[in-house]
């Protein structure tokens, strides 16, 4: 009797103690994680050999580790440093070396590297690898074409990849038309709006969708101002010096707001720019 009582007391004491301790442990672990930072990326040649037959699983693990890291940063509303972006790129590169056909790292890397930071070159490297292996997937050349067109202003390559996308059976007749128009170097803003509308239609990720929509609204405002400036020029036979000219002369009622928080202005060459640089 005495013995079992002692045991019961001991067990309940240890139980309470362990519950208390684990709550502290999770706090301590959190602190540790914040200081931990990014780890090492395994070179793909090494990873390929040590992964044995579980290369696909290795790719999944590497990808999800980087994605989780990025997600944690996003939730804490922290910005990623240059090294961290580089780390993410190298992780995506290794993951896709392990499984050349794995869409997620291509998609994740390409969209976030291009939109989240200025690593369009890296994003395109990933996409070109995907273009080579996923030779049935029309979305890959579509994204590539968009990056060339929108970020690099390279209409020639953009047109090439959009045509490829159309050849691979891109749904809808919009893309071939767009590709053709790009080849003739049409108006950038208008095309970008059509592109973005297409992308938004196909995106089910809410965060990405929001990013695209913000960009779309900004572009719509820019297109609106470009058209107003053109109307001004037609009416008064000279370029408006600033956007206030447009409202002063009643070409437009008010200047739209930049969703990125900047202010629109007319650059020296007559194009509409914003102080936020769409970032």
């Amino acid at each position, binding site marked *: 009797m005495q013995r079992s009582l002692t045991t019961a007391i001991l067990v309940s004491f240890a139980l309470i103690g362990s519950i208390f301790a684990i709550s502290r442990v999770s706090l301590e672990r959190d602190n540790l994680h914040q200081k931990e930072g990014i780890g090492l990326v395994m070179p793909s*040649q090494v990873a*390929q*050999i*040590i992964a*044995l*037959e*579980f*290369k*696909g*699983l290795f*790719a*999944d693990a590497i*990808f*999800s580790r980087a*994605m989780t890291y990025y997600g944690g940063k996003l939730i804490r509303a922290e910005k990623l440093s240059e090294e961290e972006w580089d780390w993410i790129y190298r992780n995506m590169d290794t993951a896709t070396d392990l*499984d*050349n*056909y*794995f*869409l*997620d790292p291509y*998609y*994740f890397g390409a969209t976030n590297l291009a939109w989240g930071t200025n690593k369009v070159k890296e994003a395109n490297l990933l996409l070109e690898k995907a273009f080579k292996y*996923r030779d*049935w*997937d*029309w*979305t890959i050349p579509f994204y590539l074409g968009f990056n060339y067109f929108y970020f690099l202003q390279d209409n020639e390559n953009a047109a090439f990849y959009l045509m490829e996308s159309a050849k691979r059976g891109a749904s809808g007749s919009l893309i071939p038309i767009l590709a053709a128009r790009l080849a003739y170097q049409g108006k950038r803003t208008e095309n970008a709006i059509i592109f973005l509308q297409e992308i938004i239609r196909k995106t089910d*990720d809410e965060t990405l969708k929001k990013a695209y929509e913000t960009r779309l609204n900004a572009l719509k405002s820019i297109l609106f101002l470009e058209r107003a400036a053109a109307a001004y020029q037609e009416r008064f036979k000279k370029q408006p010096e600033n956007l206030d000219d447009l409202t002063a002369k009643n070409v437009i009622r008010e200047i739209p707001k930049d969703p990125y928080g900047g202010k629109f202005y007319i650059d020296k060459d007559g194009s509409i720019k914003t102080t936020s640089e769409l970032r």
Partner: protein
Amino acid sequence: MTAVWSVALITFKEGIKNRVIFGIFIIALLLFAATTVVITLFMRDIVKVAVDLSLSTVSFAGLLTLLFIGVNLFGKDLDKRTIYMVISRPISRSEYLLGKFLGIVLLALTVVVFLGLMSAVPVILSKRFYYYSEARFDWMIYFIAVIYIFIKLAVVSAVITLFASFTSNSFIALVLSLVTYIIGQSTEGVKLLMASKVEKIDVSPALSYMAEIAYYVFPNISAFDLKTQAAHGLSIGPSYIIWTSLYAVFYIVIALSIGVLAFRRREFP
């Protein structure tokens, strides 16, 4: 032949009665269950991740069965001296060894059939959960990959038989088989790495020669790994199937022949 078959059947029954196999099955089923949770963390290629996890689980469970149970089935007769009872009967040593091999192959077949069918469940669930329109998947290729897991396990069984035929205890046979499996998985990668001539790195000719020899001596197990093909629905040509199957058969015959030769000359303590 009946002698071979009866040894095989006894070995199989002994293996299936082993409690470890239930542990392996439970781990595999838990991993299948975990698959359905893990896939929700991914973005688009969800079916691919499910296929990766499912097929890896089947393969892993098969390997565990062979290494923990298969190796022990050889060792038991020697450790417990029951081998005397067997070889005093009208059965040749080669028949005994072949029977043992067949028994553990049967064991591997049971594991692959059972878990291979079970592994389709998480894949079906993942397809219901989300199927990206540009993803590719084909059940036929999936089950070819499952069959190839069995072929790989048969080759590993032959390697285990070879090592068990001359080593004095089952632990050494286990270590040698495991090492052979790991080398067999990586020879192709190492050979490719040597051939790729990474810039500014000189590979000594002796080293690349050794890699070449290892490629021919050890079984090229990575040739039986079709998980990527299954995950992305990439087609596999008939010539690939013919040549890899022939390779497996030839390799098994070589390993068993050497094993039989060694076992015939062996002296029991």
